[in-house]
């Protein structure tokens, strides 16, 4: 069986939405294809009738400031995000995450939209976006809506997008002002799959020697990418110190149960790495936020 029968390359968002609506099903969108092609080839997804390629749509291939926000088109390749000065200025965690994903050949085609839409609990780009307070821009033939990123995910591999109707057009990220900074880090297992044992992203605002706001996300820490509100709350209105970090860790481990993944990590190792990553990353962001 051929993996697909028909391959469409719409030139505009409207055209994409129309063909998505009208093409014989099953129909799927393809961006870089670095997840989708493997899912098809390895039989995790049944063959489809139509693939709708999003990479030729210029509206989805931008990185620009829109008002008080940074907009990143969903079809923008990771290599462009990783090297964009705008992203580095406003969303350093995302720069770092995109720079760590796979190798250059994959990054040249893989997109941020694909990384998010694939909806894995520990996708690196997604975890960074989660900490950065990102809103997803969702579009269908009836119009657009915005959704805080966390609300997009329903479970592993499952999103709130209506398959065959809605698309991720892009992402809105708040601009970085003085005193704000972010960072991303991860630990891999040398043997085995390219998903991190644990990754972690932090965004914070530093005011008058204290942490005035903080977002923390880490994966895998449950069925969907998530933040840690209790841990964030505990760190707020405090200056960064090692002792404080340890108290925050206790709260974090209380707030989330890091599970074991066969052949990747035990739950104890994940907890241990959470401590290491939290402390290191927090220190980095704190220094950056000066």
């Amino acid at each position, binding site marked *: 069986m051929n*993996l*697909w029968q028909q391959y469409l*390359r719409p030139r505009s968002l409207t055209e994409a939405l129309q063909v998505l609506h009208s093409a014989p099903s099953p129909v799927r969108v*393809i961006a870089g294809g670095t997840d989708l092609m493997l899912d098809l080839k390895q039989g995790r997804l049944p063959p489809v009738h139509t693939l709708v390629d999003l990479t030729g749509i210029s509206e989805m291939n931008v990185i620009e400031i829109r008002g008080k926000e940074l907009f990143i088109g969903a079809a923008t390749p990771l290599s462009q995000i990783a090297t964009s000065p705008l992203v580095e200025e406003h969303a350093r965690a995302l720069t770092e995450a995109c720079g760590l994903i*796979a190798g250059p*050949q994959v990054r040249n085609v893989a997109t941020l939209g694909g990384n998010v839409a694939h909806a894995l609990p520990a996708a690196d780009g997604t975890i960074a976006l989660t900490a950065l307070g990102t809103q997803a821009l969702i579009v269908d033939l009836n119009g657009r809506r915005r959704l805080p990123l966390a609300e997009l995910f329903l479970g592993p591999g499952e999103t709130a997008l209506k398959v065959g109707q809605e698309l991720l057009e892009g992402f809105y990220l708040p601009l970085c002002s003085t005193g704000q900074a972010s960072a991303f880090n991860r630990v891999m297992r040398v043997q085995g799959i390219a998903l991190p044992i644990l990754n972690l992203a932090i965004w914070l605002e530093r005011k008058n020697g204290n942490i005035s706001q903080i977002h923390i996300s880490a994966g895998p820490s449950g069925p969907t990418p998530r933040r840690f509100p209790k841990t964030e709350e505990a760190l707020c209105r405090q200056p960064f110190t090692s002792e404080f970090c340890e108290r925050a860790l206790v709260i974090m481990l209380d707030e989330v149960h890091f599970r074991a993944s066969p052949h990747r990590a035990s739950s104890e*190792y994940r907890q241990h790495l959470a401590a*290491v990553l939290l402390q*290191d990353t927090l220190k980095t962001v704190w220094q950056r936020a000066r």
Partner: protein
Amino acid sequence: MAQKISLNVNDKHYELACLPGETLAELLRNRLNLTGTKIGCGEAECGSCTVVIDGQAVMSCVYPAERADGKRVTTIEGLIGPDGALHPLQDAFIKHGAVQCGFCIPGQIMTAYALLEHNPDPSQAEIRSALKDTLCRCAGYPSIENAIREAASSLRTGEPIKGASVPDSESVSQVIGRTTIRPDAKSKVTGSAIYTDDLKFEKMLYAAVRRAEVPHAILREVDFDAALSVPGVVAVLTAKDVPGDKNHGLVIFDWPTMIGIGERIRYVGDALAIIAAETQEAALEAATRIEVRFDELPVVNDPVQARQPDAPILHENGNLLKHIKVRKGDMEQGFREAEVILEHTFHTPQMDHAFLEPECSIAVPLADGRMEIYVGSQIPYSDRSQVATALGWPEERVHVVGQLMGGGFGGKEDIAGQIHAALLANATGKPVKLLYNRRESLIAHPKRHATQIRVKIGAKRDGRMMAVETELYGDTGAYASLGEKVMTRATTHSAGPYEVEHVRADCYAMYTNNPPAGAFRGFGVLQSAFAVESMMDMLAVELSLDPVDLRRMNALHVGSITNTGQKLWESVGLLDCINRVDAEMRKYCSTPFSARRVNGEGGRVRAWGFAAAYKNTGLGGGAPDKSGAEVQLYPDGSLEVRTSAAELGQGLVTVLRMIVAEEFNLPPERVRVLVMDTDLTPDGGPTTASRQTYVTGNAARLAAQSLRQAVTSFLTEKHDVAPERIRFIEGLVQVDGQLDNLGEVASEMQAAGILPRALYEYSAPRTMPLGEGGDMHFAFSFAAQAAEVEVNTDTGEVRVLRVISANDVGRAINPLGLRGQVEGGIMMGLGNTITEHFIVENGRVITDRLARYRIPSIMHMPEITPIIVEHPTRDGPYGAKGVGEVVCIPTPAAISNAIFNAVGIRIDSLPIDQEQIARELSSRLPQTGERI
């Protein structure tokens, strides 16, 4: 909506119809015949398929062909200039010896090409991060990196490429001992080198295999009606369609070509049915439509369980393939006289060769009733006999036409698809190609033996070793393959390269329901060296001795008697290896074995570790070790050397060419090498056991000498001069001071009815079977290695920073080729230690994708310092003995000893588990959570 793809490839415009489901790699390879773009995995892991699209490197195996519409694609074939000039990257890859088997090379060059387009002066870190996902299993990463640097500089400055500067052998002659470029290097960097999957034949069918996918069962029913109805399917065969013998094998014929009804399935890769169809898709689709029914049985998971009395019995003669014994001296006395006794048990898992070229065979039925088999195989003559036996034919009816091999490492000695392709070709009367996908390769072919090794060692307080007792369990999996031989090597080498008076070793090579295990570079010795060399360091700690001193004190030397009772009367360079590595290591650090903290972020600790090794050259153990070679002189003045010995990337063809050139005193470029063809080349025996340089090297040398004699006596007669007055100089022959052209002499000889050709069948010195004392092997290579590691004490992650490796190879025939073998061997040893974990659970292979079985990338590359030690062996060609294997053997222990020295954690099972390190480090702390 595009119904056509219009694209530019290598400055040529194409308009092509869209084919549903086609990838760009398929379009390039199948429709444009640009087969320089290779498919190593088809899963975006290896980078072999890298091409450049609009200036960006991408993996074409997961790139939909339709997306290339309107784009500019550059493939390896597009790099060569219009005048045929090589691109500086191509030239540099050749001259740096970065090309071995060559399969990954187009991908490496294209990735580098894209890098240099954007960054003309990349740093070392930039090169590495660009090549992060472009894997090379021959692993000449240092040479690849150097080649890219020099190409970059040449592109900036216009300077010509100079190439690597590798020191010559200590004693050079005309050709031997000097850096020589591989004859096939140019075709490999330009993409014109043809591997089996690049071949196409008219009306060729594509095959697929329906595998058991259960580890242990009795097959009850195979229903292939639905498969036959898939459009394009031409034939489906099952066990009852095998006309000849049902089983195949290398030593023991215990491996069914297909499992019959009522017969036993012994592992997930067992073949139940084979299909031939007009397209690959149809064949694969049909394989999934075959309905099978079986009764599953309890699984034998490991060799220890296999030996339990209540274990299910897998083969007629039980689960024990072989009990191997080594006996020397008196163990009771040895341990009584010892002042310290240590005992410990080690484990190593199965490992996969992960050669980047998956197995591929094409069987072509000929009009005269013969069958050609196109395959990259390490033992062409054995393929011929096994295929013939399965067809029920005399051997001569089968002609194996050996192809370039994209790596072998021992994994292409057994039958893969040869017999299946031949059966289908025989049944359909058409050529049939059987190409494994990566998953099939990982599941089906024989692995490195998983082992459990208990070592008990007794020594005096001063370090003198008194007794070594080992007990090994080897998991030979479902079928024997070379299991007995591999585990014999593991056993005889299990006391290390040391002189010990009292030795006892017992090995149980057991059948299980895991994938079969067979030959793999190191041939069992990698496993036992990990155990005994770890033990040596444990002993050094116990006795508070320097681990290098301990090894020096006990090292084998000329005059020593090995544990199989062999007296070593020459060519034992072990002490030299140890001393030279030690000296080099101490240049970096005067207390190499103490932990050093790294300043800066996080907890990072470094230390060195040391290990030594030895490895036999040749089959040994009483097996006749023969090889034939034929050398012929042509009227154009060129020579050809022919032998069926296999070129897997290791550089044998270069060595053979050099040897013949040396004997005729002419430039190596004048010698062609033809290998691996059962009609045209004499039997060179198996390419295994590091034997080919020695055995076939000698055959080629002696054949060349006898041809030279024939030429000499022809000229003696013709000119009526004494033979001493005839000399071979620079490709000419000098008779009494008068120069003559060799080609003309060839023509004259032919005219006189003498064919200027000589065949020599060389037999290596006789060896004795294990247990009978005397020379079990005719030569040994020796090695010492030091590795520096850095352990992240927060996360448990380990990096290898430096490796110093000395290898006693007898004589360095081609220093450039040798360097590639050394770099690649170290990287393979490193992979086996750090990145590779072949996981089988209850007989099922978990690591069935390259994404799950990680081989080292350029990111894992340490700084490598190779040291060549040359203690020539009398009967080796110019003194040479093998090197391919010994170089990777000390690596696992050197690394794990370094980890112990850094953080005090003894790794006794491979691969190194960062989680274990982190756990043990944090459990040492008074309270959890605190950082060290």
